[in-house]
Every structure is written in C-alpha cells, then in structure tokens.
C-alpha cells in the first residue's frame, strides 16, 4: 500500500505547494491582523474622544441634593414648623428590571396600598429620570430592618431617610402655616411658566426642585415656597452599572431655605383655638397688632392635623375631613360672611366725613324704617325702637338699625362703596396667604355684572346694617377694626415679620405698606371711637356684660348676622329653625383704648347674637393677651381715662 502511494504521490511538488499555501496563509493572517489593528486604531485613536465621553457619561452622574427647608417661628421664637427625618422605601425605576414584579414582591413584605402604588407610578411617569421615588413612607424601625435583610433581592430599591415637614402644634396652626404636598404635573407646568415670566432659562425652576419631592400647597408654606425652599446642591458621583454610588467625586452643598419669623403669638393662637373648641364654635378669629398690621393670631375652627398629610394621606382619612363642619376650609381667609352691625362705626365715620350727618343729627326711631313711597318696613332688631329720636353715638352703642338704614340712604351706594373700600373691604388685605378671598363690596357696577340687575334703593338700605349683598372675610373685618384703632392708617396684614438665613435678618416689607384715610377733622373719628368704647360699657352698650369688670378699656362693636331671610311679618325664633340657619355672631374690637395693642374680629357661625356670644369670646382673648401676655399696667390705662375708673376699681 505504501509503495503504491509512493508511486502516485509527487512529494516534491506537494511540499513546495504546501510551502506556498503556508506563505499565503501567513499573509492572510497578517493581513487580517492589520485589519483588526486598523479597527482598534480607529476606536482608540481616531474616535477616542467620543468613546472617552461615553465612558464618562456611563459612570458619572450628577445628582441633585435637596436643600433643608426653612423653619417657621412665632414672635417669641417657638418653632412652629420643623423638619423631621423619616424613612421611606424608595425606588429608582431605571434600575429595576421588572417594575410590576418588584412592586408585587414588596407588597408581600410591606403594607402598601393600591393607592400608594398608583401615586408612585404617577410620579415615575412625570418626574426626572434616575431619581428615586418613594412608594411607602413612614417606615418604622422594624420595617427598615426587614428590608435591610432582604435588600439584595431588590435591585434599585432602597430605604432612604428623608427630611419631612413636621408641625408640632398640629391642628391649631394649620390654617396659618398650611401644609406640604407632592409636586404634581401641574406644579411642573407652573414652574415652567415662572421661568418664562421671570425670563429665565427654561427648566431653571425644575432644576431647583430636582431633589425635592414636596412643596407648599397651602398657607405660609405655599406663599413663601420660594424663600423656604432653599437652593439645590449637587453631587458628582461615580456609579456602577446598577447605579450604585461607588464614590463621590465632587459635592456642591445645598443652601438651606430662609426661616420665617411670624408676628403670630403661639400662646394667643392656642388660647383662641382652645376657647373656640370649648364653646364648640365653628368660625374664625383674627387678631392683629394695630401698629404694624402684624397678625397675632388667626384661628379657623374646626381644624385638622396637617401631619396626616406627611407621606400622603389615605383616601379613607381624607374622606373623614370632608364633613359638613368643613375642617379643611380656612374660614379666616376664605370665609365670606355678611359683616352685619360690625361695620356701623365705619359707616358712621363715613356719614360724618361726607357731611350727610353731624354729631347732633337725630332721627326718629319708631322701630322701623321705610323708603319714601314704599310701605316695606325695614325693621330694627328692637321692635319698639331705641327712643323717640336717636343720634349717631347712641345708634352705635345700642346698634340702632333704623339710624343706619336712614344713613345708608343718605350716603347712597356710590359713597358707601368708595368709603368702605378705604377700610379695605372688597379688596385683599394683602396677607401673605395666597388663598385669600375678597368677599363682595357691592356697587352698582358689581350688581349689573354679577346679577344683571340695576341697583335699587332697597339694596342700599340693607347695606346700612351690613347685610344684603355685602360679604367680608374675618381678616378684612379685623383689618378694618385696626384702621379705626390706628386713626385711619391701614396696613397690609402680614403674618411674617422677618426672614432670616445664616443669622442674617431681613424685615418683611409688604408691597403696599399702608394707606391713610383722610381723618383731617379728628372729631369724627373720636366720636366713633368713643361710641365703640361705650359699646363695652354700661348702661346701654351691647357688649357691656361681656366686658363687665374688664381691667382695661376696650372699644368694640357687636354684630348679629341673619343667615336666613325672614318674611315681613315673621319673628326670628332660634328654636324653630335649623341650626345652619341660626344667626352668625360677630364682634370687632380693640384694646387698650388709648394705646391699642390688639384689634380683633370674631366670627361665629350660627352661634346667635353677637353681644351675648361673640363679645365674651373677645373678652377672654383680650384678657389673655393684655393681662397674661403683655401684662398691661392697669394704673397707666386708668390714669389716661376717667371713664375707666369703674372697671379699674373692681
């Protein structure tokens, strides 16, 4: 076999052919290796910068750091809103392979409601990528421990400690401080609008909130969101492919937000809140410092605990807040009520100023008023009248309706509208709360556009006793009271006295600091104020029993507002009508008379007469503030006014 093969095979030819093939093969090998090298040269030399950048982008991430929100203090330095650390279960969606599976497995370990899942997914959809979003907040220590033990099963999920707002005084301040809420799609749109408005580069504000999950939704938290928020910081970090931070490369610290220092006095606020709760009152009390326009207390009852909203309120808990008592409703700034007789001093001042009455003008009071050529009788609260004739002082002290029916007709709606706007009715008080309502200061134009009807004289008559179309907020009422106490100076009401950041303080200067009403003939104002003083005094004052034995001199005015209109020949009888149609009790006042420290408005829904219900509450409030807080010297006030001797002696 071997021989036969030898005979056929040409070894020499085969060997040289093999040699040629080997050379060709080596040539091809070298050629292809050069081809590979050319490729690597392209990648590593020509396109090096491009890949270098991509490699950096892969590993380096700039992540925002949320600033610490500014704190809120009362005038005595008590902390009203603080930041507390809470633990939240957070997910970086981009690092989760199968979101449904991850959420499902988390739900097997923790109590997570459908609602929380929905909210989480909603956030994920709209907020920036590669951020972490909370699916469950307020984890307790045990839950944190459980998760830590199982963390390796959950790529992209972690327990994070976050600062959350906490309100130590809970319900008593919610209508002042407001509350926080998750940033929504609408908020993001508003941020963009703000950029456009302030001619900033688009996305500036969003960037500022890149690490922030919540923003102020109500009250001071909302109004001062910009100052409270602070400036976002950033951190350049190196991460691995799962987004885990390997090390921090650079860090720019965030700047904490500004602190707010309020005019508000926590003790007074709590006292008022407590008094109203004791009486079971729905309503609002606003107390201001006349010399500054600073709000000392602003209470709306009933109320609710804003801490329930931290970490998202469940719809079940939220339903509980939607009762007929409406605790979510901020009566002090949003409630609009007929002012009733509380605006009589203002109307009297206007009448004197406009010259339609004089201090000696007296009108007949049969217990009713009627317009010429009309037999409709506008009844006085005192069916038999306040005497044969009534002058302006008596009309205020006894709250004579007939006198003011007559006065309003003398003034006419145009004068009333212009005059009352001077006291701040029909316009915002300028308080630092966005939700503020203006109520209605009626005028001919208003009625035409709102009701499509002309103004009738009968409309003016009702305005005379603060009824009819006229509605005010408790805030406006308190402010108008402060104007009288202040001899015509009207300040913008403010809750915040000053801001501070890193121990640098900045006073709060409202846009419109004050407005001066023409009081050139001081006697008009003095007459009105004296009348208000007599309201709290014997023998005829409507608030005399409430202020009996007061250790200071107070000026005031009661009001009782009809909620339901009563037919011409019907008697008002509280026992016969539903509670929600009971009269609203009102009181305005200030004290001490000579150097007013507090001016307030009390508004009690369906509580009955102002003198018997609202005035006693005002007395308790003034007692607390003047005697317990300010410790006003009785002798000093007594020496300035003879009339106070009775009160001081007791």
């Amino acid at each position, binding site marked *: 076999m071997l021989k036969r093969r030898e005979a056929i095979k040409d070894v020499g030819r085969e060997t040289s052919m093999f040699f040629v093939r*080997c050379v060709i*093969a080596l040539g091809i090998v070298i050629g292809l290796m050069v081809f590979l090298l050319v490729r*690597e040269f392209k990648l*590593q030399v020509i396109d090096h910068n491009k890949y270098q950048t991509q490699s950096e982008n892969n590993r380096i991430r700039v992540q925002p750091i949320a600033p610490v929100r500014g704190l809120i203090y009362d005038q005595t330095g008590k902390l009203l809103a603080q930041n507390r650390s809470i633990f939240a279960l957070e997910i970086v969606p981009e690092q989760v392979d199968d979101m449904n599976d991850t959420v499902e497995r988390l739900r097997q370990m923790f109590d997570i409601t459908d609602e929380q899942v929905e909210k989480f997914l909603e956030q994920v959809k709209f907020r920036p990528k590669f951020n972490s979003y909370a699916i469950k907040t307020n984890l307790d220590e045990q839950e944190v421990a459980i998760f830590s033990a199982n963390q390796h099963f959950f790529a992209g999920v972690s327990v994070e400690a976050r600062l959350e707002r906490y309100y130590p005084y809970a319900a008593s301040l919610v209508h002042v401080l407001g509350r926080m809420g998750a940033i929504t799609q609408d908020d993001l749109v508003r941020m963009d609008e703000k950029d456009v408005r302030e001619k900033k580069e688009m996305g500036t504000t969003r960037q500022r909130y890149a690490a922030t999950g919540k923003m102020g939704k109500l009250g001071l938290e909302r109004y001062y969101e910009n100052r409270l928020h602070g400036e976002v910081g950033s951190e350049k970090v190196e991460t691995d*492919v799962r987004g885990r931070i390997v090390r921090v490369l650079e860090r720019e610290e965030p700047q904490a937000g500004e602190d707010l220092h309020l005019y508000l006095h926590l003790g007074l606020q709590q006292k008022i809140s407590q008094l109203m709760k004791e009486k079971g009152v729905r309503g609002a009390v606003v107390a201001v410092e006349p010399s500054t326009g600073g709000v000392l207390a602003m209470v709306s009852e009933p109320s609710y605990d804003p801490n329930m909203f931290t970490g998202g309120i469940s719809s079940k808990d939220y339903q509980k807040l939607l009762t007929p008592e409406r605790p979510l409703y901020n009566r002090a700034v949003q409630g609009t009520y007929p002012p009733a007789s509380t605006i009589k001093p203002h109307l009297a001042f206007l009448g004197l100023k406009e010259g339609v009455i004089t201090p000696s003008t007296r009108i007949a009071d049969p217990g009713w008023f009627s317009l010429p050529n009309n037999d409709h009788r506008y009844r006085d609260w005192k069916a038999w009248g306040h005497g044969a004739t009534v002058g302006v002082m008596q009309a205020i002290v006894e709250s004579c309706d007939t006198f003011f029916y007559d006065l309003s007709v003398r003034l006419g709606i145009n004068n009333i509208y212009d005059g009352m706007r001077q006291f701040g009715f029909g316009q915002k008080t300028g308080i630092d709360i966005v939700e503020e309502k203006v109520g209605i200061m009626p005028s001919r134009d208003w009625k035409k556009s709102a009701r499509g009807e002309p103004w009738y004289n009968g409309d003016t008559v009702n305005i005379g006793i603060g009824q009819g179309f006229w509605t005010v907020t408790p805030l406006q009422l308190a402010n108008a009271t402060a104007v009288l106490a202040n001899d015509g100076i009207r300040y913008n009401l403010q809750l915040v006295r000053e801001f501070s950041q890193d121990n640098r303080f900045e006073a709060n200067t409202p846009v419109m600091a004050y407005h001066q009403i023409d009081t050139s003939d001081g006697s008009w104002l003095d007459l009105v104020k004296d009348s208000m003083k007599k309201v709290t005094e014997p023998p005829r004052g409507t608030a005399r029993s409430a202020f009996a034995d007061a250790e200071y001199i107070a000026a005031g005015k009661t009001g009782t507002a009809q909620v339901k209109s009563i037919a011409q020949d019907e008697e008002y009888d509280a026992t016969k009508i539903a509670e929600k149609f009971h009269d609203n009790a009102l009181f305005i006042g200030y004290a001490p008379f000579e150097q007013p420290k507090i001016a307030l408005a009390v508004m009690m829904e369906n509580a009955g007469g102002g003198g018997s219900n609202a005035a006693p509450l005002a007395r308790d409030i003034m007692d607390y503030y003047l005697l317990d807080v300010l410790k006003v010297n009785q002798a000093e006030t007594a020496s300035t006014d003879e009339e106070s001797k009775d009160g001081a002696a007791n």
Partner: protein
Amino acid sequence: MALRTSAANTHKARRSLLWRLHIDVPLLLGLLALMAFSLLVVYSAGGESLALVERQVIRFGAGLTVMFLLAQVAPRTLKEWAPLFFLIGIVFLLAVIFFGESSKGAQRWIDLGVRFQPSEIMKLAVPIMVAAYLADKALPPTLKHLVISLALVLTPTVLIMIQPDLGTSLLIAASGFFVIFFAGLKWRYIVGALGIGMILAPIMWYFTMEEYQKGRVLTFLNPESDPLGSGYHIIQSQIAIGSGGIYGKGWLNGTQSQLEFLPERHTDFIFAVLGEEFGLIGIIILLALYLFVIWRGLYISLQGQDSFSRLLGAALTLTFFVYLFVNIGMVSGLLPVVGLPLPLISYGGTSIVTLMASFGILMSIQTHRRLHSA
C-alpha cells in the same frame, strides 16, 4: 527550504531534555506568555478575585498536561486512530441530539459521569480525520477525494449546527476546510465555494438560522437600534476599547469593566477589558504574541515529515487564528456576536483544554521527526 531545515537537525545527535520530552520551547514560551497575560486581565476583569485566577491557573495546568500527553503521541499513531476517534465523535453528537441536556436554549451537553460537549472532540477529530484521509492521496486532491473530504467535514458541522451552536460548527467547518486548503485545493474551487456561499447565505437566513442568531446579525449591523437590549454588549465593548486610547486606563483602572458596564467581561468580552486597561499598546502586544504562536505553528507544520503532519499542523494553527479573529472582530464591532472566547485569554471554558491539545499535536509533529524517521 523545509527539507533543508530538517536535514540540518539530523546532525544534532544529542537532543535537549525538553526535546526528548517532546516539548517545543519557542511554542511553549509563546503559550506561557499568553497565559500570563490572561491571568493579569482575568484578575482585573473578575473584580480582583484571586479565586477566579486560581481556577484559571488550574485550567491552564490541565491544558498544559493535555498538551504534554498529546505531544507524546506520534503523528503516525494519531493518524491510525483517526477514524475511530472521528466515529466516536459522530456517535456522541447523535447522542446529544437524542439524549443531550440543554442549557440556554441549546442542546450541547452530554452526561457521562462528567458533563461535556462532544463538539469539543470534533474540533480535533475533524481536522485529524480529513488530514488522515487526504494524506495518502495524491495532492492536490481529485474531485472524488474532495467530495469525500467535504462529507467528512460537513457531517459533524451540520450535526453541531442543529444543536444549535453556530460558532462551534463554523470553527469545525473551518478546521476541515483548512486541511483541504493546505492539501492544495484548486483556487477555482475556492472562488466557486465563496460564490455558492454568497448565494446560500440568504437561504440560510430564511430557513436554517434561529431567531437569536438572526437577532445577533441584525444587532451587529446596527447596534444602536437596541442600545439597552442586544446592542448593549457591542456598544459597551466599543466604548471600553475606544476609551482606553493608546496607553489604556491602566491595570485595574478600566471604568467600563470595574464598574461592570461591560457584560461578559471575563469571558467572551475580555478583549474589551484588555483594550480599555492596556490600550492600543496592549492590543499590539497581544496580537504580536498571537502572531508569534501562529508563525511557530506554521513553521512546525512546514517541517512536518509527512502530508498528515503538515496538513494537520497548518490547519490547527489557522483554526487558532480563526478563534482570535472572530472573537476580536466581534468585540470590536466588526463581526456579529458569536459565542467564542478569546483563545487562551478568556476565563474558563473547555476551549482551553481543546486548544492546548492542538498545540500538543503541533509539538508532537515537531519533536517526533527524528525518532519517527530513524
């Protein structure tokens, strides 16, 4: 020239100890250099895990042992056993199809006490068989011999392709064709085969390729079409290599690999780690080492004393080149992703043992010359 060299060796009466142990020193040095390089890169790519390096060392040890054992087997013996070896391989491949174990969607494994892939046997059995068959024929082969050779190559290729394991089947086909090429296949056949291949390619696309294989090709053509899915590997490996630049980011400093952006970094994509950390310089060194090993392989083959040795040696050497070319081409984005390791550098795999076995055969060819002819 080949004859002259071997004649010169004849007069060296005394052989070194290593020669008598059938070790070719230059080839061994080239392989050891590659292994050392491998350990460096595996240590870095494996997250500085010494355990990984240890296991790689053990595998290299096993490979060197197999190489040493095979080097003792004279080419003549290998040739005599070739048909049996080949037949056993075919039986195993059929067994895999009917009784094999599947993993990752492919049926490649068989359990005979130890789990192994019969296709690994075929990497050696096919070139040995074809070389044994053609060695006795007058070369270049006649058409009849060519057809039989092709049948010897294509039977196992098809059996492996249906497992499916495209990468291995192509390698085995290549190793068989290389034997035929070195046997003096006429150029017009080569050109003709390439032409037929181009016609067959679309047919294969529609009738025989699996979805995942089509996906790989599509991804190769446009990796950015699916940057987080199948294109991810290619994009990340190119970023790794490209960001390495000329000098590299330094050993253990490759961010793409250390931060785990690079998938399969200690196995199939280890070349990207090398490129990132050692730069173009490192790649040139690696290719130079490979070139040296290939040159030595071809040199040994040229000195082979019979057709069998020559054909087998050259074919095994070129198959080694195909390995590294396909792997580097794939990692650099020149070729579609095929699951082939970088020879002697990638961590793990039975491929190290198989490769070292083929170098054992080369050493046998080199060192059995005198003894054989004496």
